[in-house]
């Protein structure tokens, strides 16, 4: 018995000791040896045909300092934009290590910003690395710069310490206006691979008002295949999101029932349903939208809390939404880019007919008709029932 146990324990001890020899901490890397990249920008080098890659590396020490006391050494920036050039993205990434000394750690990369010139040329060859590298996340947000990506990366935001984090926050809060939409690498790639659907990506730029250089995100870039062909304005983008059912919230402005002022509504909820109909070669998309809104602001003194006013305003809202949708639809026809994914919807519903439509989808798309059925309900008038106006105090 004891002999048996002794042999067993000795085996176990040997196994445990072998762990140290065989494993040897392979695959481990200390945090100190990492350069944490939180954003990347891809541009064309101005002088050559090479890629100019901007990696935004966090300076951890600066991050910890409170923004006020940062003075003294350095410029107080919490980030460091490192540039690398190369014939391919991967080459540029590795070239950056000449400057950092440490390996770039890209698992925490939140955004990839592509310069406009790249987008116009075609993104396919540039985004391959971002999807293929195992450290990269498919949920990385992709944005198109209005001009050059590195300018966006260099802008120093006021509240956030890191431009890339700032952009991530901006994109994630698209719901407040629904004037742009969050697109990540995976979405972009799946749109691209789908064939008929046109990929879109939000546009990011720098506002030059006064002295402040603020990053802003607004509107969407529209791609045909992998080439950027045009852009959607803010209203057009929301038109697109209405159809997709992705409107989370936003301000809907209509003129008041007596046309004296404006009434602003907050969109509380929006649901959509699209039913494609294919009849003897003619395609009609029936879009059904159900929404709820609340009266958030009015610039007139009239009493809007009446049934008649509500009905009028509901109608006006319906019309406003319809206009946004039609604007987006017209733009997409003009660009011949199926941003709505109508092709996919038809494929799912009418697989047999789709086979014949698929090949000439580019020709068919501009002939599609859109039929909207919108229903908006005003749910509340927030804290005020009647407007704050002089001389109307009730007794």
């Amino acid at each position, binding site marked *: 018995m004891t*002999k048996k*146990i002794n042999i067993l324990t000795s085996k176990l001890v040997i196994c445990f000791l072998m*762990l140290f020899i065989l494993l040897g*901490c392979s695959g*481990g890397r*200390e*945090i100190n040896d990492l350069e944490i990249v939180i954003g990347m920008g891809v541009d064309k080098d101005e002088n050559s045909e090479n890629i100019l890659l901007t990696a935004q590396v966090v300076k*951890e020490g600066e*991050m910890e300092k409170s923004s006020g006391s940062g003075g003294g050494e350095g410029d107080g920036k919490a980030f460091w934009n490192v540039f690398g050039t190369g014939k391919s993205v991967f080459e540029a990434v590795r070239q950056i290590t000449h400057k950092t000394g440490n390996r770039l750690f890209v698992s*925490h990369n939140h955004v990839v910003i592509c310069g406009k010139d790249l987008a116009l040329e075609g993104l396919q060859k540039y985004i391959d690395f971002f999807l293929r590298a195992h450290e990269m996340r498919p949920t990385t947000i992709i944005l198109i710069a209005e001009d050059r990506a590195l300018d966006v990366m260099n802008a120093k935001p006021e509240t956030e310490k890191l431009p890339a984090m700032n952009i991530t926050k901006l994109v994630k809060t698209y719901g407040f206006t629904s004037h742009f939409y969050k697109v990540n690498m995976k979405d972009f790639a799946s749109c691209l691979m789908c064939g008929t659907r046109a990929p879109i990506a939000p546009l990011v730029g720098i506002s030059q008002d006064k002295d402040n250089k603020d990053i802003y995100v607004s509107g969407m870039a529209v791609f045909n295949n992998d080439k950027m062909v045009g852009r959607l304005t803010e209203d057009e983008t929301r038109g697109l999101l209405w159809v997709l059912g992705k409107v989370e919230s936003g301000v809907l402005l209509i003129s008041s029932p007596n046309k004296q002022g404006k009434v602003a509504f907050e969109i509380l909820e929006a649901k959509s349903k699209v039913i494609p109909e294919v009849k003897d070669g003619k395609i009609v998309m029936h879009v059904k939208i159900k929404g709820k809104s609340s009266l958030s602001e009015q610039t007139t003194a009239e009493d809007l809390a009446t049934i008649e006013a509500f009905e009028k305003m509901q109608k006006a809202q319906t019309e406003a939404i319809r206009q946004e949708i039609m604007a987006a639809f017209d733009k997409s026809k003009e660009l011949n880019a199926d941003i709505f994914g109508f092709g996919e919807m038809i494929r799912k519903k009418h697989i047999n007919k789709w086979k014949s439509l698929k090949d000439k989808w580019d020709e068919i798309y501009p002939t599609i008709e859109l039929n909207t059925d919108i229903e908006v309900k005003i749910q509340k008038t927030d804290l005020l029932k009647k407007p704050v106006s002089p001389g109307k105090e009730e007794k």
Partner: protein
Amino acid sequence: MFRYISKIIRYSALKSKNAIHDDTPDKNNNEPILSDLEKNLEKIKGVLRDSSDVTFHEFNFGHDRRFKGALIFINNLTDKNEIHKNILQPLMYDVLLLKKDVNMDFTKIDTVRKNLISITGTQKLTLMSDLLDHLLTGATILLVDGAKEALAIKSQKIEHRSIEEPGTEAVVRGPREGFNENVNVNIALIRRKIKDPDLCIEKFNIGERSKTDVYIVYIKNVANPKLIEEIRERLSRIKTDAILESGYIEQFIEDAPYSIFPTVSNSEKPDKVVAKILEGRAAILVDGTPFALVVPMLFIESFQSGEDYYSRPFLASIMRLIRFLSFIISALGPAIYVALTVFHQELIPTQLLISIAAGRERVPFPAILEASLMIFTFDILREAGVRLPKAVGQTVGIVGALVLGQASVEAGLISPIMVIVVSSTAIASFAVPAQTDSGTILRYLYLALAGLAGGFGVIMGLLATLLHLSSLRSFGIPYLWPIVPLNFSGLKDTFIRMPLWTMSKRPNAIVWDGSDSYRQGPGLMPSPYKKDSDGSK
């Protein structure tokens, strides 16, 4: 090499065993007591080697003082007052003896016992070895010239602490009393809680030199007779020279001596021990220690506290879950930290990663070394804190807190997050007192695995631990019961504590089929009194 080492161990064990046998005093003492008083006394004096604390008091008694007798006792073990008042005085001055016409034969020990000794608890002895045993446990021995027997009279006087609140196992609600070093007091404490004729207390005498009293305490119809038989068997196998604490017994009878998990539980609190006895377990009380052993032990017992049952079930259940969590934290805390920061940085939220990186900027060591250093320092402090005199203890605490918490961070030796990880681990390890030992060992083991192979290593370690735990048994009961094997009625008192009126069955892994396995009947849920339960009106 291992075989060689084991040979050495076995040899030395054999040697020490022989050494015990060479010295055993009962070798020559297994002979009867003689009728000649002088010879008997000479013999005893020879065996005891003229110990200075043994009193031999020879005296004459009876009418005309014609009978010769002797009292032998050990000074400090016996109550002298009692000897004088109730043994010596009646022997010499009893009214019976002063009468001339009394014709009693006081050379017969029975006659002496029945007529003269006014103490309960006397025993007739015929063998010299018995006589010595009784003498050494504190009895007063009465020898009478002409009698072939001796009388052992109970007159022990044992100093003991009063019943105090135990230092371990403090409770907010529940009895404060704790066991002390006197086993008779401890048995009384248990008796006082269970006034049941079925409560059995079996006495054993273990230790060739210490002759320590060891008691098995159980309830006859509740405890499994096989369990009791097994305990008897294991106790009787112990052949050692002394039992100084119940830990000696524990290490001689436990099921898995090579496991880091205890398979015998211990407690200082009578209420806890009684509760376990009522569940069908058996307690082993050892003279000289306040710690009673209870077998069989289940893993979940470590997470149960007496207070769980005294307070209402809601918070008790949450606290029990917190105890489970603390055990996990105490074993895995540093390991997970190291695995995440060295191998899986992508799993840490960005903001947290940045602050960890900022904290580690000046730290020159790899994370695994940093963590081991910190845990090691903590264990040093803990050990020092236990051993140091109370007055210095506080100083150590302050110095420790400063060294661990502040100075090492400021000096750039340790990152602030590591301080948080290790200190929370340290605190968590004390939330489950019964598993503090295993938690500490597992912490080092998992840390090594995490440093070597990251999350993979930790998972492998966990798997090995789980396999090991499920292979353990304590006196035949699966250690992980009622989780493995799954038992639903047992689960009522595992992760959460159900109300007492729902737990009508005793744990059915411990009680046996033929036993009284119900604590109470059904339908005990409290409700307002209803006059007509059948609803007729």
